[in-house]
């Protein structure tokens, strides 16, 4: 894929946010907050970083793979998959509806191109990503495996089982990103269950940690992912702490857990879309 310029990518970010808002609004359910905050990450990954093939193969041999462990960000993932050619953009309107391939949380069962494992029950994606990274290693396939997790998700014990394992085996074809937005369902992570010093925790588990402090600045996100890529192949798994703001892009949604899992009403949608004027054309 030909690389696109920053302004072009910016436009896709705006479109992704429009898609997310319209999708959750249409069914009055779903999770807008975190995908709004991860728009730059999704776009940087799919339109700039991944060597991937929208002509979907489940086993992903020879291409970079991405897993969404925090499956409730499905609306954002579906948007970026559709916008990068995995399935028709028009299909976004079936999100969360009966007989749709776009299930509330990502699933393989309906054979939606781009999805390789179900997620939604938090805490499982890192393990899956590591397993796939090791399968690539056995096959001497030197492409990369990416995974995104939520920060609240890190409260699940399985994540730390996986963290210990990846470092032990020196899984170094893996880039795990944490959406470090400081929010979860019941409030700020600092109040619900303080994650304390995440960088030190991952380092103590034997990971190479990079921090992307401006997770809603496209150039910074790309630079962070580039840096992460440059650190692969050196015997350590890579963790990218991505500082984002939940609800970014819409002034009344930003920085609060209140929009984690609530859709906008008609009026709020109109207001929000008014703040996201750049579009590639809505579905």
């Amino acid at each position, binding site marked *: 894929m030909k690389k696109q310029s920053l302004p072009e990518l910016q436009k896709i970010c705006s479109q992704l946010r429009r898609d997310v808002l319209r999708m959750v609004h249409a069914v009055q359910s779903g999770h807008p907050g975190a995908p709004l905050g991860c728009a730059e990450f999704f776009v940087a990954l799919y339109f700039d970083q991944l060597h991937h093939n929208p002509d979907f193969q*489940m*086993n*992903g*041999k020879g291409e970079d793979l991405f897993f969404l462990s925090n499956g409730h960000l499905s609306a954002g993932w579906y948007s970026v998959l559709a916008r990068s050619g995995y399935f028709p953009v028009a299909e976004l309107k079936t999100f969360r509806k009966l007989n749709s391939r776009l299930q509330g949380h990502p*699933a*393989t*069962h309906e054979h939606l191109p781009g999805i*390789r*494992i*179900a*997620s*939604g*029950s938090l*805490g*499982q*994606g*890192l*393990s*899956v*990503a*590591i*397993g*796939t*990274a*090791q*399968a*690539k290693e*056995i*096959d001497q396939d030197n492409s990369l495996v990416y995974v995104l997790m939520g920060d609240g998700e890190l409260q699940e*014990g*399985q994540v730390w*089982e*996986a963290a*210990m*394992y990846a470092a*032990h*085996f020196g899984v170094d074809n893996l880039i795990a990103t944490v959406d470090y937005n400081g929010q979860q369902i019941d409030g700020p992570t600092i109040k619900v269950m303080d994650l304390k010093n995440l960088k030190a925790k991952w380092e103590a588990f034997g990971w190479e940690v990079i921090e992307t402090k401006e997770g809603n600045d496209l150039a910074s996100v790309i630079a962070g992912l580039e840096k992460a890529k440059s650190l692969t192949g050196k015997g350590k798994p890579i963790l990218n702490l991505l500082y984002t703001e939940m609800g970014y892009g819409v002034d009344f949604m930003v920085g609060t857990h209140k929009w984690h899992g609530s859709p906008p009403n008609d009026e709020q949608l109109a207001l929000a879309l008014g703040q996201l004027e750049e579009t590639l054309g809505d579905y």
Partner: protein
Amino acid sequence: MSLDLKFNYTEKKDTRSGFGDGFLEAGRKNPNVVGLCADLIGSLKMGDFQKEFPDRFFQTGIAEANMIGLAAGMALGGKIPFAGTFANFATGRVYDQIRQSVAYSDKNVKICASHAGLTLGEDGATHQILEDLGMMKMLPHMTVINPCDYNQTKAATIAIAEYEGPVYLRFGRPIWPIFTPANQKFEIGKAWKMIDGKDLTIFATGHLVWEAVVAEAMLREEGIHAEVINIHTIKPLDTEAILESVKKTGCAVSAEEHQLNGGLGDSIAQAFIRYNPAPLEYVGVNDSFGESGTPTQLLEKYGLNAENIVKAAKKALKRK
């Protein structure tokens, strides 16, 4: 007095050794077969495979949830992962991981569960899972296999490597008679009629198939001719074979090292109720946990041996 057994044995071995040997053979046949184990390599008899294929074997440490996720990830990358631990930790502890990452995602993962049931023995109830068949058979997409002796377990292990899809394979620890043929062909989902009979049918699975063989001889001494069917595959259940047999015999006993709730007996009862109502007596654990003891003592105390199958058979016959 010695019984006139229709199947007999010259050697005894644990079914987990059948798994270990089958696993090694499957690994030799197919380079995509890989292994994972959560700090129980010796107990699961996975050591020979690990020695021969160190690059295809992954010690996960005591982290079963992660192990299931890893296996799912390896499967989607084209490997055929065999993930082994004790049955308790291979099911109850990781049910959600199996449900989402393996069954719902339809991944070609083989969950290999040793030390199932009461015959685990002295470790006691914390380890003696008696609910695993029920949990696994409820999962859509899951194939559930519970072989009866060393030879059948070995054959089943080789067969599941060749089958595409998630499988739960259950085996155990006790030294047990080897009464089925070496190098048998294992057909997933196909019940095996071991002994022909006309008065009733005994449907047995796992270690209790041997008890059913003994019970058949005991019943025959009293002039009762039992048919014995080896149900090594709990799911998909060979309903056709089950119904064909009970249509002939008119009543049945199910025998399993598992809770009555959710076990093989329940699956058979469903088939009877829907297609051919007939008396059915259950031999299994009746809504209780196990405890420490030797395998033989426990099977006796919980009513899971040949004598109890005979009793159940007589009850079923009276209800005909």
